């Protein structure tokens, strides 16, 4: 288990390193980083001063080392818009996104998993077909289209819910529904096939044959084996949810990190985008690391196989 954990930890750090390095390469490829950081309206002397202050006349490997050391020390520069530290600008938007993502993931699990189990147990019948058709629709529906349609229906036509912003719990409903749709659809599909795979195994017949109640069979045998797939899908869902948050938050004017990133990109506010990307990659990597560990705990065969 120690060796397994260390391998996974190394991989997580490797991913983070590669993402950060890609940004560095992009920064150098895009031209003068000092000019990029100061924006198009900066005067030449300021750019030149920053070039010297940053040591951009020094050799590339040394610049790379400085870049990494700055990141490690939490120095991500200041926003080009209001000169506040990029870390501060991003941090104040984090809670809104975290709330939205948490509610969407919870919704995805609460709807997707039971739907998948139902479809598997009613394999080939009407309930199964309905769930699969719904999943096809849910995976094919781009979330900004869904978001706009929901606003039209529930905010403008029926006038039940607010169309955007943050006005109490009711303004959470539409964005969370929009963001969770893809997750509901893919969780239903994955759960269905995971349960279908287990359902015809010999050990399940044995469990029934030795007189275990259906509940126990479901939890101990179907549940534990299907959990492997579920945990993986949930890990992947976080990544999908964050990408989806950028679009969904823009649709609903949700004051979170996704909307901040989209706006900062439009304004070419590099320090803010860079730190936002760093936070996203760090959280995705951390969750995947935890998922890998859970994987090893649920299925002992995996950790011994490494």
């Amino acid at each position: 288990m120690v060796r397994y954990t260390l391998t996974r930890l190394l991989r997580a750090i490797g991913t983070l390193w590669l993402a950060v390095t890609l940004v560095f390469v992009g920064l150098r490829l895009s031209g003068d980083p000092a000019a990029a950081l100061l924006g198009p309206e900066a005067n030449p002397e300021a750019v030149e001063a920053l070039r010297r202050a940053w040591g951009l006349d020094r050799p590339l490997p040394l610049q790379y080392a400085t870049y990494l050391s700055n990141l490690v020390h939490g120095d991500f520069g200041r926003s080009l818009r209001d000169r506040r530290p990029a870390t501060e600008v991003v941090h104040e938007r984090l809670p809104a996104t975290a709330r939205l993502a948490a509610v969407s993931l919870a919704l995805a699990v609460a709807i997707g998993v039971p739907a998948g189990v139902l479809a598997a147990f009613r394999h080939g019948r009407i309930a199964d077909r309905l769930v699969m058709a719904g999943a096809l629709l849910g995976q094919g529906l781009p979330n900004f289209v869904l978001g706009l349609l929901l606003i039209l229906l529930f905010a403008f036509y029926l006038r039940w819910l607010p169309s955007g912003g943050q006005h109490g719990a009711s303004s959470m409903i539409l964005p969370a529904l929009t963001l969770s749709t893809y997750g509901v659809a893919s969780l239903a599909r994955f759960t269905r096939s995971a349960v279908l795979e287990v359902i015809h195994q010999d050990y399940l017949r044995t469990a029934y044959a030795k007189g275990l109640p259906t509940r126990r069979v479901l939890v101990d045998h179907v549940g534990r084996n299907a959990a492997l797939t579920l945990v993986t899908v949930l890990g992947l869902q976080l990544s999908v949810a964050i990408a989806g948050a950028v679009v969904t938050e823009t649709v609903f004017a949700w004051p979170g990190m996704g909307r901040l990133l989209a706006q900062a990109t439009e304004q070419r506010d590099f320090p803010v985008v860079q730190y936002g990307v760093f936070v996203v990659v760090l959280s995705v990597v951390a969750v995947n690391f935890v998922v890998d560990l859970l994987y090893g705990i649920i299925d002992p065969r995996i950790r011994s196989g490494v």
Partner: protein
Amino acid sequence: MVQSLARQQTHTGRSEATGTVRRPQVAARRAVPGFLLVVWVFLAAVVMSSLAQPWLGLPDPTAQRLTARLQPPIGFGGTWAHPLGTDHLGRDLLSRLLAGARVSLGLASLGVCISLAVGTTLGLLAGFRRGVLDQAVMFAVDVQLSVPFLVMALAALTLFGTGLPVLIALLGLSGWEQYARLARALSLRASQELYVVAARSLGASAARVLRRHVLPNVLAPLLVLATLQFTSLLLLESSLSFLGLGVQPPTPSWGNMLGDARNYLQLAWWAAVSPGLALLLVTLAVNTTGDWLRDVTDPALRRR
């Protein structure tokens, strides 16, 4: 007779299991379900009308007429002059929808071609050469799979600015890992085959073996994957355009039409509904086609 034998052979697994011999006509009719024909007619109609848009006698998709702003579509008080209505600048929505189809579908196709070429090459080489190259490619695949591509794309757009070359590069880079993973697995299997061993022992170079012997044998599943990837790229392009970071105005794309429509949604729902429905229907049509192709060519590759 020869045909029916060949057909039976491809289905031996299933025929043995059910104990029946399927006749070729039945199998052929089963191969293409009726609704798929409808789906394909729809896709063909979209592609052809979008290509023919400049000659259909519709108004210029970028021509603004501020006196004819936010006209409703036919059936909601509109006239035949603008069957789908007009947007906030008085531009004809039908004409923009078709021109936007050309842009959106064209960019997604281009992206699929690039990522298919890049991913297949890297995957084949990784599976064939093994060693350090294999490990490096698989590490990159792992990273790209775990990090949300849209977010990395935002970093690239901040650095390089918005523009067509950057957009095409991003579309081409997104999804290469899917082909690489599949091509690697397929070439690992193919490199054990006798015909590959024979070609190598006759002195054929690795490049020749890959191109002439391995590639033709692994192409079918890769093309099926490309069909399924098409909708992801369509989605990425329209998401970026929706955010104002993809296709730049005045060129219409379904994404930036929706982005515009969002700003006056309460005044003109139709400006959002037509590109939204177009995007949804094309995505569903391509996805069902891809699912069917995958089941027909290789049931073992079934996506879950």
